[in-house]
């Protein structure tokens, strides 16, 4: 009895710690006036409208979404053939590429960011919008790489062998057997990379910070020049997007399995 109570209390305390800053931000985001007060005075959803109505915030939102969509696509495009090759072939030296795919994620992000900055500056392409997409794509390759490796590992090889025995060539096997089986892992890998790219600040800032404002960059710049409740509204919007995406993954896939192997692979 007492132990159940203590356990509940512990869960509650951790939950409260995780939720508290977000509760306060949600509170200040509905203030009627442009004041940083909690509990909120009055109630207004106008700051949420600002994200879409104000041209600057809307531009940042569109930039962020475009960046995240293309970066996640690049990450998957790099991870898919690599994971497929590692599953299909015995080539120990190819594991080097797996290591390269995981490295940017394990090292402190500032390092990848500075590497990208020096690289784009040296190549003279500094500031081009697409450089951020490539930088994010490489930075987040880890996520689809891990989910896809997990997906390939879960394929029953006898299924594929059966298809091959029936006369299917590599390409047919890939299209009709392998691809449908790994599709859920591909989608979750894309979704993970998308959400993280949406939230990423430092790599985006060091590559295109002076030419494009993504939402995190815009929030940080706004933070330095003073407070607007729109920042709070955007933050809550981001939490909602992340919760929605991960909720969907949990609903349609097995998030426990996905995470059970994820960290041990990293």
């Amino acid at each position, binding site marked *: 009895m007492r132990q159940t109570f203590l356990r509940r209390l512990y869960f509650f305390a951790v939950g409260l710690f995780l939720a508290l800053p977000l509760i306060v931000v949600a509170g200040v985001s509905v203030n009627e006036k442009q004041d940083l007060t909690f509990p909120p005075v009055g109630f207004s959803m106008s700051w949420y409208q600002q994200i879409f109505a104000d041209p600057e915030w809307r531009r940042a939102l569109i930039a962020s979404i475009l960046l995240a969509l293309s970066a996640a696509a690049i990450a998957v495009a790099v991870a898919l053939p690599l994971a497929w090759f590692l599953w*299909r072939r015995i080539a120990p030296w190819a594991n080097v590429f797996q290591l390269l795919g995981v490295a940017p994620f394990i090292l*402190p992000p500032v390092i990848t960011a500075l590497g990208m900055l020096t690289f784009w500056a040296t190549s003279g392409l500094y500031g081009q919008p697409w450089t951020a997409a490539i930088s994010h794509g490489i930075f987040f*390759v880890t996520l689809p790489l891990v989910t896809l490796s997990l997906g390939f590992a879960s394929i029953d*090889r006898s299924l594929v*062998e059966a298809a091959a025995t029936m006369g299917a060539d590599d390409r047919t096997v890939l299209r009709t057997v392998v691809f449908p089986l790994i599709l859920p892992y591909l989608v979750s890998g894309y979704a993970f990379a998308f959400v993280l790219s949406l939230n990423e600040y*430092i790599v985006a800032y060091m590559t295109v910070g002076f030419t494009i404002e993504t939402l995190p960059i815009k929030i940080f710049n706004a933070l330095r020049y003073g407070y607007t409740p729109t920042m709070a509204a955007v933050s809550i919007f981001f939490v909602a997007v992340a919760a929605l995406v991960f909720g969907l993954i*949990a609903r349609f896939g097995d998030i426990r399995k996905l995470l059970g192997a994820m960290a041990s692979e990293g």
Partner: protein
Amino acid sequence: MRREAPKSLADYAPLVFPGLMLIVFFVVPFSTMIAVSFFQRDPAGFYTVAFTLDNYGRFISLFFGRVLGFSLMLSVLVAICCVAIAFPFTYLLTKQSRKVQTVWLVVLLSVLSLSEVIIGFAWSTLFSRTAGITNLFVWLGLMNEPVALLPSFGAVLTGMVYQALPYTVLVLYPALVRLDPTLLEAARTLGSSPVRAFFNVVVPALRNTVVATVIMVFVFALGSYLLPQILGRPQHWTLSVLITDQAIYQSNMPFAAAMAVFLVLISLALVGLTLFAGRKENAL
């Protein structure tokens, strides 16, 4: 399809695109950074090509030593706090129903994916005078008037623990999920209470996991680049903040690169150590 060694050159085809991308956009940038760390600063542009050890020479200063010492101390503190909170939490979580676990994992992932900008902003609001937690204390009669709790060391530490806690839980989760339940049953059969069984059986059995996790979280905390800036004073700046500052605001790319190389070496050494710790546990 059985795994087989590549027979012809065509079998390597799937490797071409990922290999090229990773080499051109990760290995080359990384090498560029190392090269730049030996170049000279150009206040008007990015750098001028030269060979100098001056950027590394600047490490031997009281200022740099203080920043490095503070970064390491802060990261150790964050790692210890996180593992101390997360280990019992994750252990209890793995004992819950699938549904409860799934909900918590979604929550943890959502917080983990949050931008450092947002985490910094959220905590600076929570610690502010006008909208902060002290208003609640005043209302409860614990304090006379609301105060700002930042900038301060406590604010930096709290923000970084918040940032790293979901990561810690997710690193610990696989190890704790796979923990052999018969170990605990044996302890319980022999009459030990759940709390004692936890400390006498679970913790020692996962000693190396705990050590590896502390190091992983330490490296994660070393990477925090905004929270010390938003929640702390200049003396609370860490190596990551200093690198960002030098690269962007002081436009001293070579010095930033030299510090980044140094940070890579620390991180790699530590990650290597975790692999070593992990191997020992597997051997047991």
